[in-house]
């Protein structure tokens, strides 16, 4: 099913909203450029990040074990989950043991990936997303459309309507300060009444056994400090070897994500709070398969900054939901196509191979090459439509026969200009839906060249 083109066409149909979305994200991309260009050592930092990540991935077993050992020594409980279900079961069992009825959660793409919220809600636990953007989409019962800006697809009036319905704000009041205060008042209550807090993890430091969480709202700190129980869920690729490696990533992360020099809060969690408990759940969920695959391994370098989304001209004009995958955009497309190629076969093609994503990526993931490789893998494994494969076979056949190609071109140049417009611009001519065909010249270059050579020869003969 080619789902992305269908979703994208719907998104583009609302021209005003599409352009608004494009401009909002381009604004973030430009902020990122200003921040990145402000550091003379920017490209060197990207190289460091890539090298550190690649090194870590190649010794992941060692660093994970060291991390576990150091975390345990600090009184943190460490759990291992091979997949999404196991992650959810572990989190649930920890909460159940403490009789938790209400969980406050800061942003975590991993728990989105594992569909933790519905799993816990089905078992009677209330889950409150505390990142403002995540809270908005949670109230609307929508998935995030961006990994850093979860509600970037919404305008302030959409938020106003949502808050009016769920938080009782004034109808029609879309003043951002008013709406933010309303969310804050509501979340404050949740923080104070929650029995446990769950955070994501931006970086897990093998050397210290602690985790680092970066937010702009301080919501992770509230969630991890007010309730006595803190669970941190992390994909196993979040490991970095040493504390001093962290500075490379913190300098890159916020600049790449939003153009800030650093996130408002960079919080280090290195032990349970007094009288409390801290758990870390380390999740595989097919990351080991990435690790084993040379072509796609670098996708694990991702630090989830979202810069590839902000720069992607297709993402900006089709919106995050058009990808129908927890992580959209270029990095989401390569992850989705790797994990479930059949389901997400249109995503590697939702791309012009422009390469901008690879250039903005702070960890130097070869995103456009990966998407090119996915196309080859999809074709090899029979995940592309028969009509597409058929037309490619015909083209290859013709191109392998230069004389036949010349003849086809000759016929087209003779016939097409004589055809009535209605015959050229039919429903099978997708190009012609919005574009005119090029004017067909009388002669091909090859024909003109032959003529020119002949004339030159004649001239030479005449001279002699």
């Amino acid at each position, binding site marked *: 099913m080619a789902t992305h083109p269908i979703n*994208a066409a719907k998104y*583009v149909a609302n021209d005003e909203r599409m352009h608004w979305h*494009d401009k909002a994200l381009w604004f973030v991309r430009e902020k990122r450029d200003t921040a990145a260009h402000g550091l003379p050592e920017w*490209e060197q930092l990207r190289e460091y990040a890539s090298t550190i990540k690649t090194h870590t991935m190649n010794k992941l077993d060692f660093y994970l074990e060291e991390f576990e050992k150091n975390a345990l020594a600090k009184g943190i409980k460490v759990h291992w989950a091979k997949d999404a279900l196991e992650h959810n079961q572990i989190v649930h069992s920890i909460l159940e043991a403490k009789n938790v009825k209400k969980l406050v959660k800061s942003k975590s793409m991993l728990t989105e990936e594992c569909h933790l919220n519905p799993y816990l809600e089905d078992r009677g636990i209330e889950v409150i997303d505390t990142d403002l953007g995540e809270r908005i989409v949670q109230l609307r019962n929508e998935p995030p459309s961006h990994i850093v800006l979860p509600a970037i697809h919404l305008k302030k009036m959409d938020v106003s309507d949502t808050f009016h319905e769920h938080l009782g704000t004034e109808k029609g009041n879309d003043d951002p300060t008013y709406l933010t205060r309303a969310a804050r008042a509501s979340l404050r209550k949740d923080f104070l009444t929650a029995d446990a807090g769950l955070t994501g993890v931006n970086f897990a430091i093998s050397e210290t056994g602690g985790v680092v969480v970066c937010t702009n709202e301080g919501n992770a700190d509230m969630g991890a400090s007010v309730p006595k129980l803190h669970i941190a869920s992390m994909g196993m690729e979040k490991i970095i070897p040493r504390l001093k490696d962290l500075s490379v990533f913190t300098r890159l992360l916020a600049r790449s994500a939003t153009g800030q020099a650093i996130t408002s809060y960079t919080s280090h969690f290195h032990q349970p709070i007094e009288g409390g408990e801290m758990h870390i759940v380390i999740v595989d969920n097919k990351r080991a398969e990435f690790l084993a695959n040379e072509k796609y391994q670098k996708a694990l370098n991702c630090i989830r900054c979202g810069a590839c989304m902000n720069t992607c001209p297709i993402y900006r004009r089709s919106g995050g939901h058009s990808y129908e995958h927890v992580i959209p955009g270029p990095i989401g497309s390569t992850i989705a196509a790797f994990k479930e190629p059949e389901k997400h076969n249109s995503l590697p093609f939702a791309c012009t191979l422009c390469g*901008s994503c690879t250039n903005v990526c702070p960890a130097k993931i070869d995103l456009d090459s990966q998407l090119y490789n996915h196309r080859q893998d999809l074709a090899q494994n029979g995940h592309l439509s028969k009509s597409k494969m058929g037309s490619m076979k015909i083209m290859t056949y013709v191109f392998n026969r230069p004389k036949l190609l010349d003849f086809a*071109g000759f016929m087209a140049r003779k016939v097409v200009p004589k055809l009535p417009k209605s015959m050229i611009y039919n429903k099978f001519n997708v190009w012609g839906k*919005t574009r005119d065909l090029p004017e067909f010249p009388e002669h091909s*270059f090859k024909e*003109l*060249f032959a003529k020119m050579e002949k004339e030159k020869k004649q001239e030479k003969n005449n001279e002699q």
Partner: protein
Amino acid sequence: MLQQYHITFIQLITIKGVHMKIGLFIPCFMNELYPEASMATYKLLENLNFDIEYPTNQTCCGQPMANSGCAKDIKSLAEHFVNTFKKYDYIVAPSGSCVTMVKEHYSEFFDDDDVHYNKVKTSIYEITEFLHDIIKPENLDFSNISFAHKVGVHNSCHGHRALHLGTPTELNIPYSNKLENILSLIPDIQLIPLNRSDECCGFGGTFCVTEDAISTAMGRDRIQDHIDSNVEVMTGADMSCLMHMQGLINRENKKLHVLHIAQILLGKEL
């Protein structure tokens, strides 16, 4: 056709006694649809006194199939290309993306130490790149060309980011742009900066039909950027991108001329 051009005397100031043989690679669709831009490429090289050959058995480089996932099927095209062009000192083409195809995506069909492919890979150039890197701007004289127009450079992605014809806005490295450097040798040309200097136009090969809605939106935005910047002529080093945008411009009767960079450099008059 060439009557529309100024007679140009682009002179190669220093050859230093090297006799170089150039193989002209004209992408299949340009051969069929854009003989004028193709001829302009040929004439540019001819004016520089090169010994140019145009092998007439050349065909498609395979890019449309490879970008559609069928790279495995184009091995024969890659071998044919290398066999056709291996004897030349330089291979020059008026298309950044076709050159990228040969340079970046043929390696899977040849051994790492394949002498012929390695020669082809390192001697193939897009025409602007060839003028800039091999001939060098200081050896080029476009002083008798007049092109008194406001020109916007469309930096096509493959040429821009894969061949490094220009510095991409994403990277924090010193700025340079080969298209601008060569075009600015024309005394009265006005190069106009765009709001988004290297945004993709949305052509993308088969992308333009498989994702036609987004492709069209991207093309329109790219055109609008030129119009908003008061550009009269859009130019670039990739005819496929220009074909896509010309198609939109013609359909929507927009006031914007489109020319391949080789046409401007040969002294095309509007």
